[in-house]
């Protein structure tokens, strides 16, 4: 599903990721953890091609760096659902319209869009906020909209970058429960977080990063 072979990434000559070798199988739920600046976000960005590796090879399903062409990037991103740390919601669109975007990008007919969006919003318990604008929602609600948008098109893999970063404990638990549900439906989920509580006693793979290196792997 996802494979990194000797991957290295540099910013301005400074190494951010070094010699990363990793394989994530289809249907796994994997946590990437480490302190701020450990390279977690960069690791995720390499998966959805927001960054390109300077060294090594990356395989995401049928896509393969460095042979992949720039014009294939949209197709790769359509097979990945991303939960951004800063949400990246379009504030001029309603909750429904934000969640519908990935489907419209895929050219889904409007009738199907409606039922699919409602189903995705039901999963994150936000059907009652369908016509609300993001700015009127709480942080937890916005995060759930982002999750609904990430899963609405049934991607092969869902990536989440610090999904509970700005949320209080109770809401964070709700969000984690949603990710577990998504994983139970067979989707590969990769979550980058520095909160230990998120994966403690989860029984899932936890990969530890420090200063751009994988320093350990355990079961949470």
């Amino acid at each position: 599903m996802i494979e990194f072979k000797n991957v290295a990434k540099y910013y301005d000559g400074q190494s951010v990721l070094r010699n990363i070798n990793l394989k994530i199988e289809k249907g796994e739920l994997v946590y990437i953890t480490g302190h701020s600046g450990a390279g977690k976000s960069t690791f995720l960005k390499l998966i959805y091609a927001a960054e390109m590796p300077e060294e090594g090879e990356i395989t995401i399903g049928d896509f393969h760096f460095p042979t992949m062409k720039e014009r294939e990037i949209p197709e790769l991103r359509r097979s990945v659902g991303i939960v951004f740390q800063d949400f990246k919601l379009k504030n001029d669109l309603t909750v429904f319209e934000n969640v519908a975007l990935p489907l419209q990008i895929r050219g889904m007919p409007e009738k199907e869009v409606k039922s699919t969006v409602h189903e995705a919003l039901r999963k994150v318990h936000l059907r009652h906020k369908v016509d609300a604008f993001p700015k009127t929602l709480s942080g937890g609600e916005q995060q759930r909209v982002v999750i609904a948008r990430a899963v609405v098109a049934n991607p092969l893999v869902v990536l989440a970058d610090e999904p509970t970063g700005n949320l209080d404990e109770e809401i964070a638990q709700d969000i984690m429960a949603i990710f577990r549900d998504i994983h139970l439906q067979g989707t590969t989920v990769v979550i980058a977080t520095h909160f230990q509580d998120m994966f403690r006693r989860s029984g899932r793979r936890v990969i530890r990063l420090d200063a751009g290196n994988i320093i350990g792997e355990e079961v949470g």
Partner: protein
Amino acid sequence: MMRIPYPMHVALQSIWREKWINLLTIFAVAASLLMVTLMYFALFNLDRFAGKLPERFSIAAYLKDGITPQETDELIARVKKQEYVAEVKFISREQALADLKKAIADIGSVLDGMQENPLSSSLEIRLKQEYVSASSVKKIAAELKSLPGVDSIYEGEKIAETIAHVKHSVMVAGIALFSILSFGVVFVIYSSVKNLFYRKRDDIEILKLLGATAWFIRWPFLMEGGVIGLFGGVFGLLGAYACFFLLTTQLSAELPILRLLEFPHAIVVALPLIGLAFGIFGAIVAIGRIRFS
């Protein structure tokens, strides 16, 4: 709920939200297209008048005094043989005087005291249409003047020359103005879309991350550019029609020739389409290549 496709939704939303800026842009485009249209309007009518000229254009060859009827017949036969001649009409001195009297009937009494007919007989030579141009008329006039029995020629070459000159000048000015204003129209739309593109860069980034193709991102901007151009064309057309109406109704009382003006109906469809094409082109240039990495 979203009922219209995303690109149209975004384009309409943006047009409405930025309505005043968009309206100003539309007027700027309309003003530019109006100037181009007025130039075309002038050229169109001048061309129409010039097109009718060959039907009426003729050269007058005044004959020498004392030319005999036999010499006149020989001259007519010789002129008729020329490839550029469509028709030859002989006007005798007497007929010329009668025509003159008829033409100046109101002041005809000035001719009453005249003892002798001062006019010459002449040949009115109508040319074939393809020979009615300033250069060929000049050449034909010289040729006719060299014929025996011909005293002088009134070739009307100046008229043909002036019309050709004005037509050429208007065409050159029209092409120059069209090029400059076309660039202006594209630039106005380019600036408008570029500005919008810059303000929406965060939204565009989100779309890219969600897997949107370059065309999915481009469509709303092309639609917006197209709508601005299209309405610019429509307003330009309305302006051109208002000018035509003013010229043919209000001003024609003082300058009756203006009544002969004709509105080039082809621009009713062409101008909005030209505006649309410029709008889309301006937007394409403004967006440029969309990069994903």
